[in-house]
C-alpha cells in the first residue's frame, strides 16, 4: 500500500461528528480519452479494478466527471511535497531488488493485461529513505489501448500476444512470479466479469466490447504461465 498526496485541507465536515472528519482535496492527474488514446479512461478503470482484485500495487484512481467530460483521476502517490520522478529502465533492477514481491506482481499483471509500456510508468522510492513506496501508473496503452485500434488490441489479447521487452522481465524472482500467476489464476470468471463489464459505456467502449475483453482476459488468465514464459523468453 502507498500513501496519496493531500493537496489542501479545508474545514471540518461537522463539529458534531465524533470522528471529526475534515474536508480535503487530493492531488491527482486527470486523464481523458483523446484521438491518440480513445480508450484511456476505460483502460485505466479496468486495469485498476483487475489489479485490486489480485492485490497488484497500482496507483489508486477514480472515474470522474467534469465540464470536459469523463476523466480518470489518478492519485499522486507518495504523499510527498515533492513528487518522485518516474522509474527509468536502468532503475528497474533496483525496484526488483528492493520490492521483489511487488515487482513480480506488476510484471505478471503486465503480461496478463498486455502492457508493453512499463518503462517510466512506475513510481518507487529507491533512495536511502526507508519509505516503502512502489506503485504502477498509467495503463492507457494496455488492454483495449494496446494498439490504436480497439479491435486490433482485442485480437492481440485473444491471440495470446505477450509483452516483448518488459523492463522488469530480467529481474524478477521466479518463485514470486509463480506465486503471482497462481494468485491471478485463482480469480473467478465472475470476478473478472465484475471488474471489466461495467454495464455502461465509458467513452467509446460499450458493453459488447467490455464483455469480449472479459472473455479474452479469462483465456489469458488460463494461459498465464505460457504468456509469462513467452514474455521472459
Amino acid at each position, binding site marked *: 500500500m502507498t500513501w496519496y498526496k493531500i493537496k489542501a485541507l479545508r474545514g471540518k465536515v461537522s463539529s458534531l461528528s465524533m470522528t471529526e472528519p475534515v474536508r480535503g482535496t487530493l*492531488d491527482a*492527474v486527470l486523464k481523458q480519452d483523446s484521438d491518440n488514446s480513445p480508450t484511456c479512461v476505460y483502460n485505466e478503470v479496468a486495469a485498476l479494478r483487475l489489479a485490486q482484485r489480485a492485490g497488484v500495487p497500482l496507483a489508486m484512481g477514480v472515474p470522474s466527471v467534469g465540464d470536459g467530460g469523463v476523466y480518470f483521476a489518478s492519485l*499522486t502517490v507518495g504523499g510527498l*511535497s*515533492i513528487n518522485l520522478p*518516474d522509474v*527509468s529502465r536502468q532503475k528497474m533492477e533496483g525496484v526488483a531488488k528492493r520490492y521483489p514481491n511487488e515487482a513480480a506482481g506488476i510484471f505478471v499483471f503486465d503480461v496478463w493485461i498486455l502492457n508493453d509500456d512499463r518503462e517510466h510508468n512506475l513510481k518507487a522510492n529507491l533512495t536511502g529513505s526507508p519509505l516503502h513506496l512502489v506503485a504502477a501508473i*498509467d495503463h492507457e496503452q494496455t488492454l483495449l489501448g494496446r494498439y490504436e485500434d480497439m479491435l486490433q488490441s482485442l485480437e492481440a489479447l485473444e491471440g495470446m500476444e505477450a509483452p516483448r521487452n518488459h523492463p522488469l522481465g530480467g529481474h524478477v524472482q521466479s518463485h514470486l512470479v509463480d506465486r503471482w500467476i497462481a494468485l491471478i489464476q485463482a480469480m473467478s470468471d465472475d470476478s473478472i466479469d465484475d471488474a471489466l463489464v461495467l454495464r455502461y459505456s465509458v467513452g467509446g467502449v460499450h458493453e459488447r466490447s467490455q464483455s469480449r475483453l472479459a472473455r479474452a482476459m479469462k483465456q489469458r488468465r488460463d494461459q498465464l504461465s505460457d504468456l509469462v514464459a513467452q514474455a521472459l523468453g
Partner: protein
Amino acid sequence: MKVQITELCLTVADDLAPFAVLVEHEHECAWAMASDLHPSDKGWLGHVLEEAERRPEEWWVLEAWRDWLKDVAGGAPGDRREAFRRLGRSTPGCIVRRPRTAATRLPAGAVASRWRRDRLFDRAEVIAAEIAARLAEGGKAFWNATLTIGDHEVLTGDWVVEVLPASGFPRAAPPAPGANPGFLAPDATVAAQGLALVHVVKAHQVAETREAWSATQRRLGPTYPYAVAVVRGWHGAEVMDGGCLIGERFAAPVSLGVAAVRSKWYGP
C-alpha cells in the same frame, strides 16, 4: 556553439522554481541540480525546497531526481524527449520548461555547472568567490588597497585573502545572509567548491585576524590553499585599486568581479 538548456522546475503557485538542468550539445548531455544532496549541507534548501514551498525534511526525494537525471542524460536524445513528455504527465508539481538555446564557447558540462552555482549560491557570494580565487592565484595573501566606503569615504589599508579548501576539510553551513560570521577557523570552513567567503571585520580586529590567519597558515603548511578576504569596516566598501569590491557581507564587485563573471560564467 549552441547548447540546448532544459530546466526542471517545481511549481510555486503560479511561479516556477528551477531545481535541475540538462544541457545538451550534439551527443553530449550534462546535468546539474541546485543541491549537493548532503544532509549536512542545508544551504540549498532555501534555494530549492523552501522557495518552492515544499517540506525541507523531504530533501531525500531529490536523490531520486539526481538518479533520474543521470539516467536521462545518459540516454539517446529521443528517449530524453519522451522522458520529459511523460514526466509532465505523471508528476504534478514538476514542470519541464520549454528548452531554450544559448550560444556559448563552454562545453555542456561547464554550462550546467555554472547554472548550478547560480542557483545554489547567492550571486554576490559567487562573485566574491571568483575575486578571492583570482587574487589568490599568485599566492598573494596580503595587499594594500584603497577602499571607498559609504559616501566616498576613503580607506587605505591592508587586506587579507585566503582561499578556502575545496575539499577534504570539515563542512559547515554558510552563515545566514547579513550575519557577520566571524573569522573562519579551518574547522569551520565552507568547503563548497569555488566558494570563498569574503569576511568583514572591524578595523581594530585586523591585527588579530592577521595573527589568526598566520597561525592557520603555519599549521597547515605553505601549500595549503587559503581563502578568506577580510575587509576592514562593516560598511559598503569599494576597492579602487587591484579590483575588489563593494557591498556588505558579500561584496558585489564592479571591476574584477564583473570581468570574472563575464569570462568564467558566460564565456568571453
